């Protein structure tokens, strides 16, 4: 797979070139954006097979929307982030409906400490993923953009079409909801009850 040979060109310009039938733009966008979509899906789902499916679906939606893309309306990466987040949420919600509570999952027999710790870490991540999926979309996007993408408030504000001040409140509400959802599982997740 060729590397991104033209890192200066804006994603939106490449998307416009794709819409005009430029195969080179398709190649560059694939190289740039597929790892991004896959990485985000992998963090949100923790399963490489599902992450691949989500990344592929998100990229297909990008090709589909290309002819109607309006330059300057949204950043391509922000649009893709939201699509991936929503696709992951759908899967996590389905997964959450069939998931067993953490305290009834059988303990492995005679686990070595490293295995136990790894399992506990993974249990925490899974619980957080499911709690994230249960958040309203805007809260989820604000929280995950900040923590997964390292996005600053103005960037999140632009993505959500709200003021910078509103981002603070949205993020705080999202975290409070996460804390409330996870607090009941604190012991199962390896936290001391406060």
């Amino acid at each position, binding site marked *: *797979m060729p590397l991104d040979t033209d890192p200066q060109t804006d994603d939106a310009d490449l998307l*416009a070139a*794709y*819409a*005009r*039938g*430029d*195969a080179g733009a*398709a*190649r560059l*966008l*694939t*190289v740039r954006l*597929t*790892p991004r979509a*896959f*990485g985000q899906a*992998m*963090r949100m789902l*923790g399963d*490489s097979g599902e992450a*691949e499916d989500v*990344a*592929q679906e998100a*990229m*297909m939606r990008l*090709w*589909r929307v*290309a*002819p*109607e*893309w309006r330059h300057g309306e949204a950043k391509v990466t922000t649009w893709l982030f939201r699509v991936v987040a929503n696709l992951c949420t759908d899967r996590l919600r389905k997964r959450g409906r069939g998931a067993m509570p953490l305290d009834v999952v059988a303990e492995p027999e005679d686990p070595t400490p490293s295995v136990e710790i790894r399992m506990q*870490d993974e249990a*925490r*991540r899974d619980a*957080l*993923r499911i709690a994230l999926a249960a958040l309203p979309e805007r809260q989820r996007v604000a*929280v995950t953009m900040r*923590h*997964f993408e390292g996005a600053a408030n103005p960037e999140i504000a632009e993505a959500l079409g709200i003021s910078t001040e509103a981002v603070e409140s949205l993020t*705080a509400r999202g*975290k*409070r909801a*996460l*804390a409330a959802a*996870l*607090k009941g599982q*604190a012991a199962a997740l*390896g*936290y*001391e*009850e*406060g």
Partner: protein
Amino acid sequence: MTKAPNRDGDDAWIDGMLDDLARTPVPETPDDLKARVMEEAYAMLPAPGGQLAKAPWWRQIVEGIGGWMAVGGLVAAAATGFVVGLGGLDSVGVSTPWTMTYETYYDSPGSLDAFGWDMEEG
């Protein structure tokens, strides 16, 4: 064991979990995934030299007006104007079917059809 939050609004616990999830190592993007994405991109590639699709005429009108909110406002204003206009007809001396009494209707030119005169004149 790590301390769980013991009061509302304690974000450190959640921040730690989110940061841990964000730091989770992500495997390299599989080459076959990129190949599949590329294959779909080529399959959906518009014809060379293709123009960016124009929005349909109705969407251009809606956007020209200022979006769906503006269209809603326009419709509400038009409906209000229509109702106010109908209500005002009576005050300028124009009789309308819903403001007429029976007598008014009977004497109005609209009621004077040939059949009515015939009946009255016997």
